[in-house]
């Protein structure tokens, strides 16, 4: 299974969500996407977007204003 990284640091919501949506659109079930962000809004918006589209947030970490969200692509 492939693992991809999406760097949206410095971008404000909803841009990170849009980029995430676009990247995941080209991925397959079970693959993982690691999203790097700085907007605190992503802590709400990316998991919310994942829930309504059937993807799973595996991990969320926040350190020095940098946020890392790992998503497993759903069906």
């Amino acid at each position: 299974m492939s693992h991809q990284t999406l760097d949206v640091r410095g971008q404000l919501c909803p841009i990170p969500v849009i980029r995430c949506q676009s990247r995941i659109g080209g991925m397959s079930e079970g693959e993982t996407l690691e999203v790097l962000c700085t907007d605190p809004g992503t802590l709400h918006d990316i998991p919310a977007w994942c829930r309504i589209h059937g993807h799973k947030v595996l991990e969320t970490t926040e350190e020095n204003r940098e946020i890392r969200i790992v998503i497993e692509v759903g069906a």
Partner: protein
Amino acid sequence: MISGGLDSMLATRVIQEQGIHVEGINFFTGFCVEGHTHAIRRQDQKKQKRNNALWVAEQLGIKLHIIDVIEEYKDIVINPKHGYGSNLNPCLDCKGFMVKKAHEWAVENGFDFIITGEVVGQRPMSQRRDTMPVIARESGANDLLVRPLSAKILPPTLPEREGWIDREALFDFNGRGRRPQIALAERYGLHDYAQPAGGCCFLTDAQYSAKLADLWQARGNREYEFDDIMLLKVGRHLRPDPGFKVIIGREEGENHYLEGYRKRFTHLFSPSHPGPFALIDGIAGPEEEETAARLVARFGKGRDADRVAVEIHSVDGRDRTIEVVPLSDAEIPQDWYL
């Protein structure tokens, strides 16, 4: 079409009640971004930062597709066929554009019709009995555009005529009052929703529009880039001279955000006193840079000091530190403030 407000939430729910599969679409123009300022300003970081459209979609149990229309939307803002509202808000053109994009998306993705939360008489430009047909016609959606909350006082659409949806179960809301919507929300058990309905477009804001108009005037054309319209939401903007303006962070979150532009703008900050990070937008020589430095000093903790050191880092790589006397309030003309 999901804005994140109550009306589109109700309109969707009304159609879902008829057993119809609905998915949401939301357009990001760069202007409908209340959440951005919350994210930027540190003092607001405890405020709710949810994206209302996503939240509404989750409450309704539908997918939401957020579409980036930043580039295409420029033409709507710059050349609105139907003109502006009280500020630089091209509401009628905007709605027509969004319905057109929604219609295109619906066709590409196999959907049969479009639902909006529009209510006859709710808004002065885009939701009037005489302008709502204009939106349907100019968007190309025509009678595939269903407005469930006012459907009974509008001509039947194709989905109603064909019996895909039951017109009798739709509504006849009319006017600016919110009582029917609030009552319907109550009926559906919806208690938490964004108020006021209809999103949060910065172009309806007088101060924001004034800053955009100033940007256009200073540049001599009515173009903009995404970063321009983002920066208009951040900091104090002061224009001491037609050739340049200074964007000054108001607190740590804004300073941090402005620092992200340090490679693209001449920027200033004080190493001697805590205070703002600032950008110079435009052409500034040593004299103008000194004025900007005195403004930076004025809005920092050294405002009452005799001298304040200010580092100036130019985009062309010239770095220097100067000592300046902070400008007093009396020395800052009111018309510098945008």
